[in-house]
């Protein structure tokens, strides 16, 4: 069993708060992604868990054991750095066997485990080669093998694919994921790429400014973002957020979006919660892929095309009206002319309301 429990974990450097009271539970054998922009505290969290830096406050527990004050060399975690930190002056074999040799394992045992690992990672023919000058793909496997061979229950990876060519990234993601399943490890993976997190993680912890924003499965953070940050960060492009005021007309609730138009809310829970809270200024959120162009709908929102990106299988249409902007994702081949006004109809049951002041989603427990 290898669970990780972070309790009110904080770290500050002088007056700068890098991490603020993080509460996070990682389950046994879970692939947990720490996702957020640069400076959000994800790397700080990793370093705290690994033991490279000391916490300012809070606790770190592995399987219920308090390791907050345990030195880095004794925590028993595997770590993969962003640039892999391969011992380039040693052979591949010596890299892989390093951890075992530090534990003074018997020579035959070391060789046996190195062979097994090399077979698993298809590094067999390279074992006696010098580790410098090898391709990134191989270095990644060596880095993982080197840390995995001492069989740590917990594995930490700090943006290990950021140096990898975009084309290889997809292949290496799959490899990493299957290795995690194979080794049955609890893995924490740091990334700034939401697509990577969505692809690989069992659950995602979204962070910003040193504060945890939301934890959930990929579909949970995608479908039910708890605040505007998560809504805007997940998805490519992120959720559209339009400013408006709630209004009530003839028993129905809607959002008045100024020059763009008025959008009726049909979804019950959010409308009811909004009415109850008596809020006025809201943000109406809907995802770019949940919009249809609906000329026949009188209630459609009117915005003009300002930019078109044709990216293979999808077309991202940028629209604006007044000071507000919306992006729409359409299928390959969608015809859009610059300056044309399009009547947009967001899918009714996929809209979300956010309180403009607090940024929190309305109608969420």
């Amino acid at each position, binding site marked *: 069993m290898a669970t990780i429990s972070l309790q009110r974990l904080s770290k500050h450097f002088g007056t700068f708060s890098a991490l603020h009271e993080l509460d996070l539970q990682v389950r046994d054998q879970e692939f947990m992604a720490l996702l957020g922009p640069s400076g959000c505290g994800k790397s700080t969290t990793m370093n705290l868990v*690994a033991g*490279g830096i000391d916490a300012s406050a809070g606790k770190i527990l592995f399987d219920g054991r308090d390791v907050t004050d345990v030195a*880095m*060399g004794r925590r028993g*975690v*595997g*770590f993969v*750095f962003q*640039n892999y*930190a*391969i*011992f380039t*002056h*040693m052979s591949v074999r010596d890299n892989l066997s*390093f*951890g075992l040799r*530090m*534990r003074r394992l018997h020579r035959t045992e070391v060789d046996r485990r190195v062979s097994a690992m090399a077979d698993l990672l298809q590094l067999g023919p390279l074992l006696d080669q010098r580790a410098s000058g090898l391709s990134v793909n191989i270095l990644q496997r060596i880095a993982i093998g*080197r*840390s995995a061979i*001492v069989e740590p229950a917990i594995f930490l990876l700090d943006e290990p694919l950021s140096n990898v060519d975009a084309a290889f990234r997809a292949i290496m993601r799959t490899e990493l994921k299957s290795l995690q399943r194979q080794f049955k490890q609890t893995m924490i993976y740091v990334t700034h790429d939401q697509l990577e997190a969505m692809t690989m993680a069992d659950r995602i912890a979204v962070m910003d400014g040193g504060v945890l924003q939301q934890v959930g499965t990929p579909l949970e953070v995608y479908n039910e973002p708890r605040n505007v940050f998560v809504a805007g960060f997940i998805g490519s492009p992120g959720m559209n957020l339009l400013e408006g005021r709630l209004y009530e007309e003839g028993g129905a609730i809607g959002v008045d979006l100024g020059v763009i138009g008025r959008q009726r809310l049909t979804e019950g829970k959010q409308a009811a919660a909004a009415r109850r809270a008596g809020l006025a200024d809201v943000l109406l959120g809907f995802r770019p892929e949940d919009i249809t162009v609906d000329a026949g709908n009188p209630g459609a929102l009117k915005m003009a095309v300002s930019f078109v990106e044709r990216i293979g299988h999808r077309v991202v249409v940028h629209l604006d009206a007044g000071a507000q902007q919306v992006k729409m994702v359409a299928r390959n081949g969608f015809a859009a002319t610059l300056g044309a006004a399009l009547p947009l109809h967001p899918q009714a049951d996929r809209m979300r309301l956010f309180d403009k002041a607090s940024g929190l989603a309305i109608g969420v427990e």
Partner: protein
Amino acid sequence: MSVEAVKAPIAPVVVQAGDAEIRRLGLRLTLPAQLLLAFIVLFPLVMELYISFTDWTPLVGKNWVWAYRYWNDFDNYVEVLTNARLWGSIVRTFVVMIVCVPTELLLGLGIALLFTGDFFGKRFFYSILLMPMMVVPAVAGYMFFMLFQSGGPVNAILSALTGSQVAIAWLSHANLALAAVMIADIWQWTPLMFLILLAGLLGVPEDQLQMATLLGAGRWARLRHIVLPRISRILVIAVAIRTIEIFKIFDTLYIMTSGGPGDSTETISVYIYKVTMQDLEWSYVATIALFILVVLSAVAIPAIKRFGAAR
């Protein structure tokens, strides 16, 4: 706000030469300097070679050009190979080398390792540590001469430490004089090793050290498996530099002991100096010089090759 067009003048067109043309032009322009350098380097070498086959000394009254009149074939070479005093000085030089270079290396490495961490007064100690290197060697010689006097500071400290009155005449005893000379050299040149090794140590990637720690390596393990292999090339260079220099040890030593007492601190340079300036056997000395050149090259060239191969 749109971005206005701004016209900037374009630099004048200059036709660029090809690579080979540039190399040839460079060769031609530096030819005078190259010839001068060649002359300066080769002329003494040729002259030495010439007079090494003769019996010429300035005492004969004629210019060295006429040395051919005193041809003695390989007599000087035989002398070099058999002269007891010469070989004694060579042995002594080696003793100094074998004691001093490893000591300087280990001390320098130890201090450099200390300096990779942080401690109170680091900058201050850094400046102090570099001072010995900056002292003029002759001045250092005189300084240690004073230190090692019977009534001098070294004995005073030893007296304080042992409780009894210590009045060793360091520079009058054969072995102690050699020890004193070696101490002086270690004092002066450890800082050089320290500097070179510190530069090498700072080049060891921090993340690899962290990774080693994570994999369970303690301080000694990290030193052995990560640090030392990575600085091995710099280590070799530092040792090569220092070995070649120490072979030529002269100024500090000469001021301290003049090669004495007797010939107990007479290293090869001191010996050559005496034979040249006091005995004036210049053709014999020329032979020795050529001999040393060959030996030092045999050490230097492999070391340089190893450095060049370090990519």
